[in-house]
Every structure is written in structure tokens, then in C-alpha cells.
């Protein structure tokens, strides 16, 4: 009996210790370090070429593309845009750029398009394959002219989750990556609302929460510190998910 008590005690102490460590500042710093090591390794391994996410054949798309997070925006002005077919939808390009832009859906469709069949991996563990079409973000950023000192791109969204506006961000490597597109078509059709109508960012080398939906703005900044909660994204601010979601 004594031995069992000892083991139970050890187990409880282990879990309590884990909780103590998990809540501590230094463990947070350690996690950030591990995260940047992972990012460094991923980028280093792909350095000799532009490492691309795998692309699939059109025949391999999932019969249905699951939506997660916001499925319905549920705001009056969004619904008005949706009901009008998004003819007056605008996405702004602002911040550290030479020429701020305001792009309509027509402008987006008039740019050179990239179509890619890719796999979407949710942080929860599931995957779905879809065909996405839209202009490369790099093309839009070139039009606006990125200024010296811009280190991150912030993506503003129309949806609100749990009382906070959804937003996301990525670094310039990912922003300029050929597979990073502003998608307006999924499997050849305008995006369904659950998948981000009318515009969704595709950031193929990272997990699903880094693919913001209902895009309203693209903003170039030097630092993430002063944006919303300062951690670079809705889930990062709210629940402490890693900013780099390449793992």
C-alpha cells in the first residue's frame, strides 16, 4: 500500500510540476526558442530551392471542404456584401508601402492567377484537399511597393470570434512565397462562406489558422508588438498558439 501511495504521490507531483513549469515565464521563452529552431531548420533545409508545399492532382480534391472557426460571419454589412455578390468588397493594402491600394474583386480577378491543389492541415489534426485560385500575394505587394523596414504582413478579416476581430500575420519569406495567394475560387467556384468568401489567404507551408478568411486588409508593418494582442494573430493572442505554425 505504501508503495502505491508513493507512486500516486510521485505522479501527482509530476503533474503539478508540469503545471508549474507550463505557467512559468522561462518555459514560455523556451517554447519560443524551440519554435524558432523548428522554423530555422525548415527554412535552412529548403534554402537551396524554394521549398514548396506538395501539390495534388485535381482528381484528388476532397468531396467537401470542411470549414472551421467562423462558419458564418453573421454581421449586417458582411451579409449585405454577400447578398450583392461582393461587387463592392474592397481589400486595402496599407502600412509600409509606397502606394496604398484598394482592390475590388474585379481587380483581384484581373491579376495573373495561380491555381494550386493543396492540402489544408488544421492544427487539430484533420486535413482536406482543395483547389485554390487567386493572384500571388507577392504580385499585389509589388504593385504597392514594399518599403524598407517592413518585416511582417498583417491580414485583417471581417469576422469576429469570441468578441475579437480575427487577424493573422506572416513574415516576408512566406509573403513572397510563390504559393502564397489571395484565393477567390475553391474548386473553380467562388469561395463558400464557411471557407472565407470572398477572399482567403493561402499560406501553404503552415497550419490552417494561418490562412485568414474574409480578407479586408493587407498591412505591412515593422513589428507585431503593437498589433492587437501583440502575438501576431487571433489564436496566438487568445490561446497562446505558436505564431510559426509550420509544425
Amino acid at each position: 500500500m505504501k508503495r502505491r501511495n508513493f507512486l500516486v504521490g510521485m505522479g501527482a507531483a509530476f503533474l503539478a510540476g508540469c503545471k508549474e513549469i507550463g505557467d512559468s515565464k522561462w518555459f514560455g521563452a523556451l517554447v519560443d526558442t524551440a519554435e524558432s529552431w523548428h522554423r530555422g531548420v525548415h527554412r535552412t533545409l529548403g534554402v537551396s530551392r524554394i521549398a514548396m508545399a506538395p501539390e495534388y492532382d485535381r482528381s484528388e480534391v476532397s468531396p467537401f471542404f470542411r470549414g472551421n472557426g467562423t462558419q458564418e460571419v453573421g454581421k449586417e454589412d458582411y451579409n449585405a456584401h454577400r447578398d450583392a455578390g461582393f461587387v463592392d468588397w474592397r481589400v486595402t493594402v496599407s502600412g509600409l508601402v509606397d502606394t496604398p491600394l484598394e482592390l475590388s474583386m474585379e481587380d483581384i480577378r484581373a491579376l495573373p492567377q495561380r491555381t494550386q491543389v493543396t492540402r489544408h492541415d488544421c492544427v487539430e489534426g484533420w486535413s482536406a484537399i482543395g483547389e485554390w485560385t487567386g493572384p500571388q500575394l507577392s504580385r499585389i505587394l509589388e504593385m504597392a511597393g514594399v518599403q524598407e523596414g517592413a518585416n511582417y504582413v498583417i491580414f485583417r478579416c471581417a469576422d469576429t470570434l469570441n468578441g475579437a476581430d480575427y487577424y493573422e500575420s506572416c513574415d516576408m519569406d512566406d509573403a513572397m512565397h510563390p504559393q502564397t495567394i489571395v484565393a477567390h475560387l475553391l474548386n473553380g467556384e467562388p469561395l463558400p462562406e464557411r471557407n472565407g468568401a470572398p477572399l482567403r489567404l493561402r499560406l501553404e507551408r503552415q497550419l490552417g489558422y494561418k490562412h485568414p478568411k474574409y480578407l479586408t486588409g493587407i498591412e505591412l508593418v515593422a513589428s507585431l508588438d503593437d498589433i492587437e494582442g501583440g502575438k501576431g494573430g487571433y489564436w496566438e493572442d487568445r490561446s497562446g498558439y505558436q505564431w510559426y505554425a509550420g509544425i
Partner: protein
Amino acid sequence: MMDETQAAKPRKKHALGTRIWHWINALSVTILFMSGLNISNAHRRLYWGDWGFAAEQAWLEVPRFPGWATIPGYYSLASARDWHIVFAWVFALGLMLFMLAALRNGHFRRDLTTRWADWKPSNVWQDIRQHLKLNFDHGEGKFNFLQKAAYAGVIFVLLPLMIFTGMVMSPGMEAAFPWMTDIFGGRQSARSIHFICAWLLFAFFVVHILLVLLSNPMKQLADMISGGRDDEAA
């Protein structure tokens, strides 16, 4: 030069590198397993192939793991991933360094390699019978066949599979090594294999602990800390 001077000293039952790795690995695998159960709770279905998100594609509905079995002790995918991501480094680098050390000091060659004769069904059966009789005395060599098979299976198959299937699940890693996803038959297959291997490791853990408890546990524990003496092989 080092080897000559050390040759006079009686060899330890467990080399220093083996002992250090054993305990670092025990800690990191425990943390990875328990944080992995928390991650599993985020989406309790497993699939084969590249994709899957709904019940009709699943080959297994995974039960929800209770808080006492997970790290942290409540559902938090973000924080479980933090633990998993930090200890993945400890686990993978630890295994790599142990493998290099065990190659260098002859542990693998001396203690884990088998001869063809060892695989004869009669020999394996004899080994199983002795285990079931709880007779752990065996002749020459540190390990009997079942021990060699179990340790080699864990060190060379299960632990590396955990690392490689884990890498396949990382979209950033996948962009650098896309062929690795294909080897495992797709990301969801890799996720399934990751899960299966985790439970095979758990099964190893249970048997390992059980056999230690049945064969002079305090001495076994002390030997894995101090190194013990080689002449009284396990």
C-alpha cells in the same frame, strides 16, 4: 589511448551514455506521450491517406483521454503543442547522440545484434517459456533474444518512426522533404502510424516496468543509475 587505460577497470553493466540517455529518454517520452494524448483530444479520429476530416473517412474513433493522463492536465491544444514541440528536440537529439555513443562504444554490436540461430522458432519459444516461468537467468551475453528484439525494435524502429511520422505532419518540414510524406502514404497515414507507434511504445513501457518489478527492481534501478557491474549480467 583512452581505451587502453580504461581496459583494466571492470566494465560497467550500463555505460554512462546509456544511463544518461535512458533517463532523459524516459522523461521526454513520458512528456511527449502525455502531451500527445492532449493533442489527440483535439480531433479524435484517425484516417489513412492524404486527407480526412469526418467520421465516414475514419478507421478509428479514438476515446477522449482524461485529464490525469494528459499534459497539461486540462484540455489545451496550444499548451500541449508547446510541451510536444520542446521535448521533440530533447527526444530526437537525445536519441541521435545515444545512437552515436552506442555505435562508438560497441553497445549495439555487442549487446543488440542477433545471430541467425537466435531466430530459430525453437530458441524463441524456449526464451518465451523461460520468461513465463519468470526465470531471468540466462547464459552468455547481456540480453536474451526477446530482450534484444524488444530493445532493438524500440530503438531502431518505433522511436525513429515517431520522429519521422512527426516530421511528416509538419507542413514546414514537408515542404523541405515532400518525399517523406509519400513514404508513409500521406499525412493522415503518418498521423495514424504516429498514434499506433505511441501505443506500441506504451505497451513496451508496461512490459518493461513489469519485468523490472519481477526481477529485483531496486537493484535494476540502482544499476541504471550507478552503472552496476558487468559480470553479474541481467
